[in-house]
């Protein structure tokens, strides 16, 4: 679990934000349909409150920006999706159905439901693979993220790649 990762391996937030945003820009460039599907909801600020991670993530698709925030100073957001990291990753990678996660309470949403729906449909169609997206990164971002995520995958069994079909 991330909290067990020794602190020196966790970067301060600004470099992390730069790395995450670069990851996002790469994803958007490689999957242009995401922004098209978001349509008017691309300008929504959507907070992913990952409850078992040290920081929630704010997505601003139209600005192609992702930023991590400290819990003490949560940013304003149009919508919030709350849940454990495993649930988010499983949904992103097509391993578990998003509605099933909502029905069971594994994910909860508040705020602009239409924006969350647009994001969910856009990402589901994009068939993302975070590991692939990381490899596509060049420069300083990959060395920051890749070992941290590899450690996470090993320790937690979290889905960090696109899954073909459900368990």
């Amino acid at each position, binding site marked *: 679990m991330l909290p067990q990762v020794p602190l020196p391996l966790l970067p301060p937030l600004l470099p992390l934000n730069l790395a995450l945003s670069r990851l996002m820009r790469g994803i958007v460039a490689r999957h242009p349909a995401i922004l098209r599907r978001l349509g008017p909801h691309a300008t929504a600020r959507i907070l992913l409150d990952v409850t078992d991670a040290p920081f929630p993530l704010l997505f601003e698709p139209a600005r192609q920006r992702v930023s991590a925030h400290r819990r003490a100073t949560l940013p304003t957001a149009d919508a919030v999706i709350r849940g454990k990291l495993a649930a988010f990753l499983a949904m992103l990678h097509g391993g578990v*159905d*998003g509605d099933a996660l909502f029905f069971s309470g594994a994910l909860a949403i508040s705020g602009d439901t239409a924006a969350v729906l647009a994001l969910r449909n856009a990402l589901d169609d994009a068939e993302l693979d975070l590991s692939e997206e990381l490899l596509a990164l060049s420069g300083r971002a990959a060395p920051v993220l890749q070992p941290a995520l590899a450690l996470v995958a090993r320790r937690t069994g979290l889905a960090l790649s696109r899954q073909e079909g459900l368990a």
Partner: protein
Amino acid sequence: MMELVCPAGTPAALRAAVEAGAHAVYCGFADETNARNFPGLNFSRQEMAEAVAFAHARGAKVLVAINTFPRAGDQALWHRAVADAARAGADAVILADPGLLAFAAERHPGLRLHLSVQAAAANPDAINLYATAFGVRRVVLPRVLTVAEIAAINREVDVETEVFVFGGLCVMAEGRCSLSSWATGLSPNMNGVCSPASHVSYSDVQGQSEARLADWLIHRTAKGASVPYPTLCKGCFTSADGKGAVQTGHIFEDPVSLDATQLIPALQRAGVRALKIEGRQRSRAYVAQVVRAFRAAVEAAEAGAPMPESLLASLTEGQAATTGSYAKTWR
């Protein structure tokens, strides 16, 4: 073998459905011409053409849903959708509006027409009317019918019948419901949405979770329990009888979903041509899992083998399932 007709809200879901064994996939354009006009969902014209090519290369069919009711003064939007579906090579279009059916029959005589469940054709007279007037080749039957009624219909009509076997149930006659526009101004018939996300809000009030549709309280649960999406007809309400008794609960329907797997052999004997899975708004994960399960069931029915036990509980709303109206006691 009965034809398995599967939902695809996105190109990724369509590919998942075809690879999971769908005989046919139904989908719509990204506008109000179909009844799943949700944010981020559906196909551009280009995506539709690519999807048809993908499906055809693997021996599957694509049916394009253009099943809302064209707006007066803006019929051209729906006419273009029919033309674009034909141009993309769709195997059929699924329509509900008589005016649009008349247009398609006249201007696209080679295009196969299916009658949407939105036309609420619930008896042989209705079905034969559409068959005679427009040359409709298949009808999607409303979910209000029993297996016996379906068998009786098949004896009296020449068109193929398609029956829902899995997914979210409409508790009212489809295509004839204005509950959503009563509360929000947006309806399935006019806008292709029901209980739209744009009018949904969740909140925590005094220790309870609430779900509202345009400020109408639809669900309330104890904090910590997940509160369902506020689909209007599945809400929790109260009703007083005027003599002092008050009923509180799901006045119109419990929020359960349909799973008619066990009735597939009976539906086959009743002459049903195609089985339909609901869920264009669901993920590619849902589609893959459900299609795989039902393809196995359809093959088992074809072989006269027993139906598999349903493994799909986690995907059904309310995590419980019903055979809907197909068993007689539902009324």
